[in-house]
């Protein structure tokens, strides 16, 4: 499946700055009811977003239920965002809600890979910079939008201010071009065949199963 390419994105950013927000919180297991990558947006942050479990009665205290943040497409998050369960449903739910990018000091590794493979940019931004973005965004979230440019790895925020970020070249390429990773790897099918032919001699027990 080809993800949506990510080149430049401008949008409202919502701060969710607590650390260690796990994928159980991003989408509780009880919200995963279909063998599908779809139908998950309503379950996003269900434990925080709704007043009671299973209901769809918005909790006005939760940030994504408040004013401009309802239209957020960027999350400013705390360290270790997306730790815990590998469930890719967390990323599918974020995508369905409309999130295109998450900025955090660090991420759960599997979650971050899942983001990249689904066209969502997960950018490492240090805590101090997240704090500055947070102050600025909160002042007027609808007007103070972030513009993330993956091509030149810059986040434009208040007038004239640019924040540079790093990203692995491979992930950047995947996101910019919206590549289907399987198709890319299958171009190396002969290298895989050769590896296995040689490996069968060295480690035959791996391949010979009862």
């Amino acid at each position, binding site marked *: 499946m080809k993800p949506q390419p990510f080149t430049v994105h401008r949008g409202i950013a919502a701060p969710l700055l607590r*650390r260690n927000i796990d994928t*159980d919180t991003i989408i509780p*297991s009880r919200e995963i009811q279909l063998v599908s990558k779809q139908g998950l947006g309503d379950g996003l942050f269900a*434990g925080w977003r709704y007043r009671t*479990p299973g209901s769809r009665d918005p909790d006005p205290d939760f940030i994504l239920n408040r004013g401009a943040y309802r239209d957020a497409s960027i999350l400013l998050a705390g360290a270790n965002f997306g*730790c815990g369960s*590998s469930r890719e449903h967390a990323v599918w739910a974020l995508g369905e809600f409309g999130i295109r990018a998450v900025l955090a000091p660090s991420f759960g*590794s599997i979650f971050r890979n899942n983001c990249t493979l689904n066209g969502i940019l997960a950018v490492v931004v240090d805590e101090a910079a997240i704090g500055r973005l947070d102050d600025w965004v909160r002042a007027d979230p609808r007007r103070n939008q972030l513009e993330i440019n993956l091509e030149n790895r810059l986040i434009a925020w208040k007038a004239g201010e640019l924040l540079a970020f790093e990203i692995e070249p491979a992930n950047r390429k995947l996101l910019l071009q919206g590549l289907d990773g399987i198709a890319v790897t299958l171009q*190396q099918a002969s290298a895989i065949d050769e590896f*296995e032919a040689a490996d069968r001699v060295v480690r035959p027990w791996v391949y010979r199963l009862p």
Partner: protein
Amino acid sequence: MPETLFDKLWRIHRVADPGQGECLVHLDRIFLHERTGSVALLSLEQSGRTVRSPERVFCTMDHIVDTRPGRGDATSVPHGARFIAATRDSARRAGIRLFDVNDPRQGIGHVIAAELGIVLPGMSVVCPDSHTCTLGALGALAWGIGSTEAEHALATGTLRVSRPGSMRVSFDGCVPAGVAPKDLIVHLISRFGSRAATGHAVEFAGPAIEAMPVEGRATLCNMAVEMGAFTGLVAPDERTVRYVRGREYAPTGGLWEQATRHWSGLHSDCDARFDRELRVDCAAIAPTVTWGTNPEQAVPIGSRVPDPDSFADPHQARAAARALKYMDLAPGTPTDAIRIDAAFIGSCTNSRLSDLRAAAGYLKGRRIAPWVRALCVPGSSSVKRAAEAEGLHEVFRRAGFEWREAGCSLCFHAGGESFGGQRVISSTNRNFQGRQGPGARTHLGSPLTVAASACRGYIRAAEPIA
């Protein structure tokens, strides 16, 4: 150039370096389960692609399958039967081996992959499940992935991976009596934090690990991901070889000889350099329990829940305050004063025969407190049979525990069975908000701690045996 164990495993499985900092890594085994594997198989089919090497792909029913006695496809999880049916159909069409609901080999993927000899030392294995790192206990390169990566793995037999850093945690000194592998790993995470190993493959080493049976090593490696690790690893040794020998899918005859020769080279060279090193003195570790909503929020049993104001880091202080509010605990509460409603023994962390023996050893001749509901869920159907052959099921039942069929069960709440609103002492790996049910308050501890706490009705370490 001296190599770490991880360096060697990486080298053995490197197919190509496609550039841009990535490595194409060969996968010897792929494991799936009905929760996240089903959607990977379905999506692969819909894309018109096939599984490259179905004979090296295995699937189990563990996450959604019911664990109540007499189970079938019906499950308390709303729409759970969809996941079971979809997995069964896709597995059949893909030609992969499935350990179905009532297969005698069924169980939690990370438990059966080891006990059936499907995953062996030195192998690479992935599963769309974060606790795949459990299998690092065998000296395998095992890591958790998402469903899209699983699809890639199935279609190509490889994954493109950015190489993680290397890290070693040395457990020095002697482990005190009554201190379990679970206490070691929760202590480690509480001391160094839930991001201490982010982006690293962690090798657990030192005298305490050398003396530890493979099942204990599995508990340690299982929770490597709770400190952010790419995976956990223990170098295979004589204990590992003894563990693997004679397992259903383990090699025999000449292949066995060849395999064991290969495994004997799988250890970190003595002068190998790690990107990071941590040391822990085991003698200073006590039975440990979590008080918060992340595994790093833990203290020795018998001490007090911390005061958020005692944290120098304002983030940690705020996190502690939020966690205490959710956990309904006052700062400074002695752990001994925490009254529990429920007790759970199970999960890929602590559901193997040695875990059940440890708990049953305590429960023999005892009863759980009258206000406690307690469950024991063996990690596999094979563990269950072995435990029953020793009469452990009778010990658990007489003590007041429910004795279940194998599966992940109440390690997490998927909409069916629930510890909602209850305080639970649990041998699992995650004490996240709502993990075991809406409003459930989870305290992580070893199986022995769960047994002792269930009997007292309050969080307690087992009394030392005189």
